[in-house]
């Protein structure tokens, strides 16, 4: 309706010039009242202009957007920051540092010896585990050999992969058995992890 206004203004001026001289007569036959000029003026040429210009404008806009998208895609994707590796700034305050007495000689000696004992214990444990696994595998191989001697068909059936085995789930070991009739306190868990998109 912006384009309509110059025409409306012209006609108004025309009408006012008329009004000075003669009785106020309805000038143009398509005007019902002096106040309703905007609604009834014919707007012939405007729709066509609107179509052409808008189509051109829209196409130009689309091309610009496509160019921007191409530029963004060419740039390398930003690395997603790992929140666990960046300590939050509030913890690097110096007021938070503890002041403790330095370690005594006996204490450090005790720690070193403890570490050595632990290393030895873990080594033995690991060796025992590996040995156990080895015997397990050997026993199974022997069983399969004997089975093959018995019947080829059963052997083939035994060798086949068991689909229902994985994913294998089992509850982990607890230090104490579950209390019978224990009612855990209720609560709601709200997940506030931040999700980054590249």
């Amino acid at each position, binding site marked *: 309706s912006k384009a309509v206004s110059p025409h409306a203004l012209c006609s108004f001026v025309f009408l006012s010039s008329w009004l000075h001289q003669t009785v106020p007569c309805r000038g143009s036959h398509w005007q019902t009242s002096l106040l309703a000029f905007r609604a009834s003026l014919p707007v012939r040429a405007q729709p066509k202009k609107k179509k052409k210009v808008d189509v051109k404008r829209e196409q130009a806009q689309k091309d610009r957007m496509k160019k921007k998208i191409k530029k963004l895609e060419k740039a390398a994707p930003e690395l997603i920051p790992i929140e666990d590796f960046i300590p939050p700034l509030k*913890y690097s305050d110096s*007021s*938070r*540092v*503890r002041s*403790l007495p330095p370690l005594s000689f006996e204490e450090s000696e005790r720690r070193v010896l403890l570490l050595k004992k632990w290393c030895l214990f873990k080594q033995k444990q690991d060796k025992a585990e590996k040995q*156990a696994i080895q*015997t*397990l595998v*050997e*026993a*199974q191989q*022997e*069983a*399969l050999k*004997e*089975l093959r001697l*018995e019947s080829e068909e*059963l052997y083939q*059936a*035994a*060798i*086949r*992969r*068991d689909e229902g*085995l994985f994913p*294998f789930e*089992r509850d982990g*070991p607890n*230090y*104490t*058995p*579950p*209390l*019978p009739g224990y009612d855990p306190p209720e609560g709601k868990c709200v997940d506030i992890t931040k999700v980054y998109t590249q």
Partner: protein
Amino acid sequence: IELEKSHYSDHEIRKLEEEEQLRRRKESMHDDDDAPGKTVIMAQDLEDKWEQKLLRFEAAPRITDADKNNDRTSLNRKLDSNLMLLVKQKIGNEELWLLPQVEWQPGETLRSTAERAMATFLGDHIQAKILGNAPHGIYKYKFPRAIRTEDNVGAKVFFFKAFLQSSDLSQAELKEDYLWVTKGELGDYLKSEYLKKVNRFLLD
């Protein structure tokens, strides 16, 4: 080591600040304009409350009643090690303690035989997971001369391992004697040859 490699946490800073405030108030006899507003609950009070709660909590004991009575038929004993099912079965003329076994029918795979064995000894609706299609161990023995025929010189027993999922065996109807034993106690019941072969594929 925990104290050495860490900084103060929020809770600890709050505790320190409150201690400071208390000390200042005692020394200079401040007006009590801070007290009712901010520190209604002190960090020290919270810690005391938590400790009280811990003392009141009683965990279930690790050594159950079945352990004290040495009742080997219940599943509630020896909670820190694995238990195996032993059944007394009649083989030939003797009654022996064995891992439950069932004769293989031609036309079924070994795994289905194992499942059938479980169904016969533990009831139909048992949730147990058999680990894989292949057998884990084998024991072969020859029949005594009286029973030997042309074809059947001896028998081979294949062993499978399975994990029991549910510990609810109330529906199980075990007719003969049965025992749940750990690996060390197996030696009390099984014969030496059998025991040797079985021990190879059982982990404690």
